């Protein structure tokens, strides 16, 4: 039994590494296909030091056969070298790291909003099936689910930032306030509310629907009848028995939704001018900065693959029956 479980984990991790390798390979060839040679573009830039260009060409094997370039690219990526942005001439990888640190809190808050609201609403709707709450929340969830993310963000800006003036219309901090310490964090949080709400509410719709059907499925099971017969409290049955079992498909769907979270984060960052990795991607497209675009793509896809792996392992922990 233990052997099987260990093998399962190893298999998943190897699978994730293979996927990342495929992603790097695909990105390498996409980069070749992108219009405009980033090295030529850098060479034309008068602010660029010729020696640095020569070093860069050496690092990436410009002029070598494609397979050698590919090996060098693999090596560079593994060492965190994603080239130099053709826009601001800075190395891509450290910049992306900084942007990622800006994106993650906003997305995490949004995801938390979505999960808390989605689980609460879904569980209540399932336990009060066919009640007004059930119909109301299902209709609300479906509507939020259908909102185009960017439009919903704009609507929140129009209502809560422009109309009511409760929150800023965009950006991450008030630059000129020169805040530090706790006020700075609070200021950033205040800027984070609307972008995170946008992401959270768009996701909430889907989560509610998923949690509700997973709960309904579980509530019909025999062991719930048994628990009832034993005279357990309703609260205990719902959370300790039903929800624990229903959490399996929910975790699967959370994992699947990571790809959408990333897409949503990109749109949200553009709408709210949130200077994270999504906005960087959008700017890289506008300035035709292919090292930056490819670096950002790589980071985003790898993030999704890792999130999927985590969900897989979590799933495994939640369900001791899996041995495969």
């Amino acid at each position, binding site marked *: 039994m233990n052997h099987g479980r260990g093998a399962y984990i190893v298999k998943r991790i190897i699978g994730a590494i293979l996927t990342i390798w495929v992603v790097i390979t695909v990105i390498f060839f996409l980069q070749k296909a992108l219009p405009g040679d980033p090295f030529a573009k850098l060479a034309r830039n008068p602010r660029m030091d010729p020696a640095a260009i020569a070093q860069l060409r050496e690092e990436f094997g410009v002029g070598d056969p494609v397979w050698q370039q590919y090996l060098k690219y693999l090596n560079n990526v593994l060492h965190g070298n994603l080239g130099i942005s053709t826009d601001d001439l800075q190395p891509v990888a450290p910049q992306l790291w900084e942007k990622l640190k800006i994106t993650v809190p906003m997305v995490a808050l949004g995801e938390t909003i979505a999960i808390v609201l989605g689980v609460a609403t879904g569980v209540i709707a399932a336990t009060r099936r066919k009640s007004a709450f059930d119909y109301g929340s299902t209709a609300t969830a479906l509507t939020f689910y259908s909102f185009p993310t960017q439009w919903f963000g*704009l609507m929140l800006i129009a209502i809560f930032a422009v109309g009511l003036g409760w929150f800023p219309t965009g950006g991450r901090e008030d630059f000129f306030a020169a805040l530090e310490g706790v006020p700075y964090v609070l200021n950033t949080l205040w800027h984070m509310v609307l972008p995170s709400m946008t992401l959270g509410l768009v996701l909430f719709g889907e989560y509610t629907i998923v949690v509700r059907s997973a709960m309904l499925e579980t509530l019909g099971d025999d062991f719930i009848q048994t628990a009832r017969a034993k005279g357990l409290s309703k609260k205990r049955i719902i959370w300790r028995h039903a929800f624990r079992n229903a959490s399996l498909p929910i975790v699967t769907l959370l994992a699947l939704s990571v790809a959408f979270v990333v897409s949503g984060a990109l749109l949200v960052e553009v709408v709210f001018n949130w200077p994270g990795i999504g906005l960087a991607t959008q700017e890289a497209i506008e300035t035709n900065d292919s090292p930056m675009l490819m670096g950002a793509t790589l980071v985003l896809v790898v993030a999704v693959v890792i999130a999927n792996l985590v969900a897989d392992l979590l799933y495994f922990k939640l369900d001791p029956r899996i041995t495969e």
Partner: protein
Amino acid sequence: MSVQMEPSVIPEPPKKHRFLSRLLHERKMAVVGVIIMGALVLLGTFGPMVARYPATRASGGLSQPPSAAHWLGTDDSGKDMVSLILTGIRTSLIVGIAGGLVSILIGGTLGIVAGYVGGKTDSAIMRVADFFLVVPEVVLALVLISIFSPGTAVIILVIGLLLWAGNARVLRSQTKSIRERVYVKRAKAIGASNSRILFRHVVPQTAPLLVANGVLAIAVAVFLETAIAFLGLGDPATISLGKLIENAFDASATTNGYWWMLIPPGVVVTLMILGCTLFGQALEDELNPRLKSTFLSTRSFRMRRAPAPASAPASASATPEVQP
């Protein structure tokens, strides 16, 4: 969303008209979906013909609020918003339907082949599908469109390419179950060729499921179109709903208070996605024999199998379907 608790095995598809009328009779959500979709198709088909103003030229003052002459006001270049939206509905429907069709063509073909042939072909196709399922759609769309030039045909192809994997999954398992049915084995025993079995027995059986998945794919395609247009990668010469939302964003409709530029296109997109989801979901719930219970999955709207009930022995079906 209605709950899928009914035993859902439908061995033979009933006669089409009877099936549809039963579907509409039993599932109110489906009726709502059909009405919304029908209204939008009518508006998209005939709307631009009967519009009072051209959608391509200015016909009034800049950014005028709604009035008797311009029911939804004018945009920041003086074009009539009603005309723009009617044209936008047409474009978004064309992109959505064509994108859905492409995804069904690719996904259906590969899914049926994978399910029918099995073995190495099957695992190869499904590995590629897994890869497409984890990659964030919007990010991949951006990269692909920045390689090719933005144009409606490219956008349709890219959308189809992004959405095929989910369809392939569903069709594969459907094909697998059909292949094992007695009449297929009998046909094989009396010497029917593979192509005859495929086209006479397998494909017709999967057709309703193909339709359901196609309708759901339209919703995702419409969503993707708005995202692509919003990020400035849409066809610049085409008026689509996504483009109208982007126009509102570019014209700072939120801070300037041009609500008539922002609200209508978003509401129409929401209705379009809602209509397709409601109808497609109802169709699939009714049709997918594989599912005892169904869960709406992330943006790609795939249905997946519920994990085995707690009382049943663990099986491979309890593992998440998407693994890197």
